[in-house]
């Protein structure tokens, strides 16, 4: 296939308070794993929202070689999965972890069809892969933040998307749990055929299978290339306007915030 999976050309998002995205162009090949990284207010989430169909925009956006606007067909929506930041849920809310995973299959099933054994087995398999199978019958609101994010990942993959958009999926989790979720994301990348866009502001908490980074600053793309080049002291100091040093360990670069 010679077309790109995601193609953005001059994407601009305008709000009363100013430009959130300013002429972003980006090409992402099939099965690529790209990090969208930048400080707060850089437009990372807005960029993800444009691709997910949550945001109006100017410019051209193509998914799977077809031009798309904010309004999408169900078919296109099914091919784009979304994992949000950890969100609040009432502990008393009547939904079990397995039922929350199953909501990922509902769009694909369509109206008037109930999930069958096939969907249930797949949901259970994904919950096993995400190490939350033992929590299947627990109310979702009673799970920890990390467990809920793993449920969220299983839910997104059950949708069988071709693109997976992740908006800071490890934010607000403690460090050990962040690492565990990142490892699971690596596992997803190795097992499924997926193009992944991963939004984060934390340079030291990246999935190891992510090789390409796009750095954003105030709505503009300031870097696009290999992750280790992105994590050079000079690039980052320019981005944050704050002197940052980086060092290498086990073949990966890390940032010292000191």
């Amino acid at each position: 296939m010679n077309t790109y999976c995601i193609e953005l050309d001059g994407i601009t998002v305008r709000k009363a308070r100013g430009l959130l995205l300013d002429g972003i162009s980006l090409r992402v090949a099939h099965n690529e794993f790209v990090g969208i990284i930048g400080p707060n207010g850089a437009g990372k989430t807005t960029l993800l929202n444009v691709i997910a169909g949550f945001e109006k925009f100017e410019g051209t956006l193509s998914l799977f070689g077809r031009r798309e606007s904010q309004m999408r067909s169900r078919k296109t929506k099914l091919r784009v999965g979304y994992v949000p930041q950890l969100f609040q849920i009432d502990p008393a809310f009547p939904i079990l972890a397995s039922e929350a995973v199953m909501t990922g299959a509902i769009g694909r099933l369509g109206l008037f069809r109930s999930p069958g054994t096939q969907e249930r087995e797949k949901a259970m398999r994904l919950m096993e892969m995400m190490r939350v199978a033992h929590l299947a019958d627990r109310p979702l609101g009673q799970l920890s933040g990390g467990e809920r994010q793993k449920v969220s990942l299983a839910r997104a993959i059950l949708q069988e998307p071709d693109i997976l958009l992740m908006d800071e999926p490890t934010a607000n989790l403690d460090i050990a749990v962040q690492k565990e979720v990142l490892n699971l994301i690596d596992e997803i990348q190795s097992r499924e055929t997926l193009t992944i866009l991963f939004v984060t502001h934390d340079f030291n908490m990246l999935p190891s299978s992510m090789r390409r980074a796009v750095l954003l600053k105030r709505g503009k793309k300031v870097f696009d290339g290999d992750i280790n080049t992105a994590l050079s002291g000079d690039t980052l100091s320019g981005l944050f306007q704050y002197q940052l040093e980086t060092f290498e360990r086990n073949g990966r670069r890390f940032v010292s915030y000191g």
Partner: protein
Amino acid sequence: MAEHLIDALTYVPIQRAAIACLLCGTSCALLSVFVVLMKMPLIGVSMSHAAFAGAVVGLLFDFNPFVSGFILCLLVAGVLGPLSDRADMAPENVLGILFSFLMGVAFLGMGILTRTKASALNLMWGSLLSLSGSDIMVLTLITSVLVLFVLLFFKEIRAVMFNRRLAAASGVPERMIYYALLFLTGAVVSSNLSTVGGLLIFALLVQPGATALQLTYNLKHFFLISAVSGIGACVSGLVVSYIFDLPSGASVVLMATTIFAAACAFSPKRRSVKTQGKEHVS
């Protein structure tokens, strides 16, 4: 006493009131599941006041109050939906303004109304004992549509209630479900102006769902418990009002509150949260 009640059931107005209790309890209780789980109690308040204001305007112009109430509900639903989707306006403020505006329209209408104000007051408090055959027909129709909606779209409803944004992104017809819900709220509220009235209906749009929230994690049971508690409040309210000769709408609301308080007292969820907390500490 029981004989006395059974005797009363031979009278047509009492029969109608009993049927209306079942229908009103069911329809309001099913809606209350959405109101409680989607955290939109203000939408319930605004809709009930829209129905009330519309009905008063209807009386003013010699128009069927149910129809005019319903039309204003639809208008409010049409305004509310898109406004609450806009990120630059806090929905609480929009609802607060809308709600007070509708209240203003209703009271203005009542002030201008030169004829007897009894009919307008009836719309406010409801009057279970003076329902017409067509009131019952409309209630039956709307309750059936609502029940059918819940049965047919149960899995979509679950996905939308869990998270509207995620549902929309994953190909669930979220807008269709959400707007259908707003329109059904309008229809239920305006058709119940004659039973419990535009002011007291709000209790029935929250209490049954809040009761179910105390008792179950299973969404199917949630709808059932909610319906049973809604019907229970309506029927027991009617019986109490008949025996002690009290206003029926007020009795229904007070019974609803009593049921909710009982559910809180016996809630297994609260108990499990408490014990879990203790386990956590130890």
